[in-house]
């Protein structure tokens, strides 16, 4: 469900820096993290590191559009959790701006911040962060309780989201009586209880078993189809990112390495670091017919028609039997170009690092 690029921007993260150390402010006098160019930012980050400070986030900038799933992917220590905490101000950024609906969050005072969190933001945590002393329904109703919503009303609202995440019947259970998957459903329900517009998920499925993780990803996508939240999703799992992201950013050592649609990253990795991740990706699952269509070839007799967003994997059986290939048709109904078996093999071959040495 890709978002049109011209959709309204919900959250804008601009030149955000987080520096740990003795006196981090000293590096941001006279400018608010915006150094003009990427090269200058890089040089500045190195300068800060050389002085013995730790740069957890360096010049991080991206936009999240309304209804978009924006994934930040990176290995541990890459600064992705720091970034999401700067967005929610669980951690105060050293410099930069976080604009939510035209207001700079980083300039908000405590009172305003609490209001933002109470009404506009929801957050899901890796290890769930459930209140051990509250049962499921009270955990979900907890944000409402803090707002002073009367008991009956907040229970009703909590009940709604509990149904939404499929936990009916477990309302009276306590967190430690639930499995990991169920606990995270509670975490998700709690974060949705206040009907936030902006939804942060910090490695929500990383603590779960692979099978459950897969199931929860599907659940998450289903929820998003219903709810259309603007989402920042943190993960260290590249495949998870590919599955759910509309757009994604890859981070390393506090810096954003590349931002783009999953397929852009795969087809045009910015550097070797990104390419490393794409190596294990089953390309046929990611590539669509539209991505590999050859626009120079027109329609030929014997060709069938297929829509551009068809994944290459599902096209394989047809191509195996039809040498002439297939004509790809775009969303507007116009033909884009042809695809045959050789095109598919070529596209897949471009991802092979170590081709076999064939002897004569």
């Amino acid at each position: 469900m890709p978002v049109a690029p011209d959709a309204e921007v919900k959250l804008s993260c601009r030149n955000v820096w987080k520096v740990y150390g003795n006196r981090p402010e000293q590096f941001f006098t006279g400018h608010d993290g915006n150094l003009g160019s990427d090269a200058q930012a890089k040089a500045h980050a190195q300068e800060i590191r050389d002085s013995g400070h730790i740069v957890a986030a360096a010049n991080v900038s991206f936009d999240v559009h309304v209804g978009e799933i924006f994934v930040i992917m990176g290995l541990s220590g890459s600064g992705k959790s720091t970034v999401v905490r700067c967005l929610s101000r669980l951690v105060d950024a050293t410099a930069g701006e976080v604009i939510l609906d035209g207001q700079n969050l980083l300039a908000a005072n405590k009172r305003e911040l609490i209001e933002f969190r109470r009404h506009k933001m929801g957050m899901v945590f890796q290890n769930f962060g459930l209140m051990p002393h509250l049962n499921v329904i009270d955990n979900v109703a907890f944000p409402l309780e803090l707002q002073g919503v009367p008991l009956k009303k907040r229970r009703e609202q909590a009940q709604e989201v509990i149904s939404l995440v499929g936990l009916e019947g477990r309302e009276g259970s306590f967190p430690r009586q639930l499995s990991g998957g169920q606990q995270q459903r509670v975490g998700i329900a709690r974060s949705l209880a206040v009907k936030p517009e902006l939804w942060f998920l910090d490695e929500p499925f990383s603590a779960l078993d692979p099978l459950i993780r897969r199931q929860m990803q599907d659940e998450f996508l289903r929820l998003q189809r219903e709810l259309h939240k603007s989402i920042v999703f943190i993960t260290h799992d590249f495949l998870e990112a590919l599955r759910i992201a509309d757009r994604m950013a890859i981070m390393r050592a506090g810096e954003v390495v590349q931002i783009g649609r999953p397929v852009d990253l795969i087809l045009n990795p910015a550097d070797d670091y990104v390419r490393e991740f794409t190596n294990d990706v089953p390309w046929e699952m990611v590539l669509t017919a539209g991505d590999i269509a050859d626009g120079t070839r027109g329609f030929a007799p014997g060709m069938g028609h297929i829509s551009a967003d068809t994944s290459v994997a599902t096209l394989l059986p047809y191509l195996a039997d039809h040498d002439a290939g297939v004509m790809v048709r775009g969303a507007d109904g116009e033909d884009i170009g042809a695809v045959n078996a050789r095109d598919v093999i070529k596209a897949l071959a471009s991802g092979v690092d170590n081709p076999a040495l064939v002897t004569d």
Partner: protein
Amino acid sequence: MTSETLTSESAAGTASGPALLRAIQAQPAPFVLFALAVATIVLYLLGPHAEALVKFPDAWVLSPTAVMNDFMRWFVDLTGPVFQAIGWLLEWPVKGAQWLLAALPWSVTTIVFVTLAWIASGWRLAAFVLLSMLYMAVIGYWPESMNSLAIVLISVPMAIVVGFGFGVLGFYSERARRVIMPMLDLLQTIPAFAYLLPILILFGFGTTVGLVASVLYAFPPMVRNTILGLRAVPPEIVEAGEMSGATPRQLFWKVRLPAAQNQMLLGVNQTTMASLSMVIIAAIIGGTNDIGWEVLSTMRKALFGESLLAGFVIALLAMALDRITYGFAKRDRFAAAQAAGLNPWLAGLGAAAAFGLLSLVVPALSDWPAAWVYNPAPDMNAALEVFVVEWRTWIEAIKNAAFFFLMLPIKIGLAKAVSPFTWGFEMTTPVIAGYGALVALLAGWAALRGRLTLAAGIVLAGTILFIGLTAMPWLTLAAIIVYAAWTTGGRMLALGTAAGLAFLLVAGVWPQTVLSIYLCGVAVIICFVLGTLIGVWAAQSNTVSAIVRPIIDTLQTMPLFVILIPFVMVFKIGEFTALLAIIAYAIVPAIRYTEHGLRNLPSDVIEAATTVGCTPRQLLFRVKLPLALPAIMLGLNQTIIYGIGMLVIAALVGTNGLGQQIYIGLGDGDFGVGMTAGIGMAIIAIIADRITQSVSRRKQEEYGLTATVI
């Protein structure tokens, strides 16, 4: 290894100056220990010629007692009325509670506590509490028990409030914590007796002393557990609270506090136990009609039957309070809330009310009828008399053997302890030479195996045993302790130790200190050897563990006084009795930590060792014991702390150390004497604590394991 071969080579070959120097630099321990032994012998032989180095000269003593007393007098003059007023205020709640517990029919009080026990843990504990309370009534100690309980019931909430306040302060402010933590250390290491004294002086005789002392003694665990609990709240839960839009106040009351609740309830449990033990100890100032006084006064009159029966009441009170508060800390509130059926709170309240009304009609339910009282104490005294007379030879034999062959040699040295009267021969020159040869032989054997430090240690130990702790020149004894601190904890610890020892010397309590070290040292060594053996055994055998566990649990909850009673009954007053009592109490952690350490090793290491073909014996000696060493060292640490704690109590049955000084100070109302001894005790405790802690910590770091105080 290389340095050891180096040293043995240089020792065997021509020991040229620089080579020897390099060897000393590479591995100084054996040389330092050996030098200390030599210095000790030299000073000992010089004796009369270097008196100032052997016995700390009186002229150098600058006793702080007079200054302390002056200060206290000035302070009392200044603030007396304030404390009198506070004392007067504090007396009211205690009196109220005592009046209430006296006025309530015994049946109602019993039902209330049985209900609490039932809710806390279930019917087993309820039955135990019921039997305990019936015992108090049957034996005829109901009013005394209730008086003690009343002070506990008032002091615990006060200690909890104070402890919680400091805990929260310490949690939020790093600076506050840096002040609070050492304060707690001090409050918990100064023996309880010692701070009865200033309280007594400030508040005057009365129940307030017990109350104030017990609050002071009982609030530190609450502080520690509050800080620990609040700190242990997972950061994600706090973040989840923040993201839910909690204000700082909500974040504390609705997120941190509930999440830290269980740890804090453990604090309540420890606070209750500490409070009870202090209430009992406070009875020593007398004038109160409570159960602690009952134990003490009967013990002084040698009415051991009564003493034991009353002591048993204290033990039952302690166990009941411990299990009830522990039960509440560990209780599954949520399961309990979900369980359908009779609400135990309501049921208990109903039953109490019913019995309350019934007791208006049936007097026997209100006041325990005299006819139902059965006190077997006289019979017990008679039986004890018979036993002691019957077994006199054995009892004397055990006592004398321990005294002449173990305690006396360590105390005054083989040089004086060996006499024809006790050992059957005299310390003639050939005997001394033989002893020297034996020590040399042992040391030589160790040295040949390349263990030079052990060899030097043997020489030093042999020297100390010959001279005796009390006759050790103060200079070398202090040097040995400082060196131990330096090798284990580094320069800071050594400096602190030196300063502490200097205080003891200058304050003029060095002889008493040495006596305390001697008694406590002997007890700790026995505890450590015996306790480790039992702990190993209990770790290997579930049956042994099942037998040992309840015994050590009981010993640990037992108030210190009570442990004295059986030993005094059989062995009468004396150092040997004190030793046994200290051992009985201080052996608990030695056993517990050894078993715990051995049973909680990482299972993959054990599995790996088993797969490479370890026999059970190899597994124990080559894998388990070395890995459990940090835990065992921590056990030693706790053993020492327990031993020092009991040392003060044991002064009641006749010892001549710092404990006795505290006791004298308390008896004479001499603040300076009591406080100096109390501080001295704390100094010893802190030095011993830091040294053993750092050994344990170093081992933990080496192995990458963690051992925690359990």
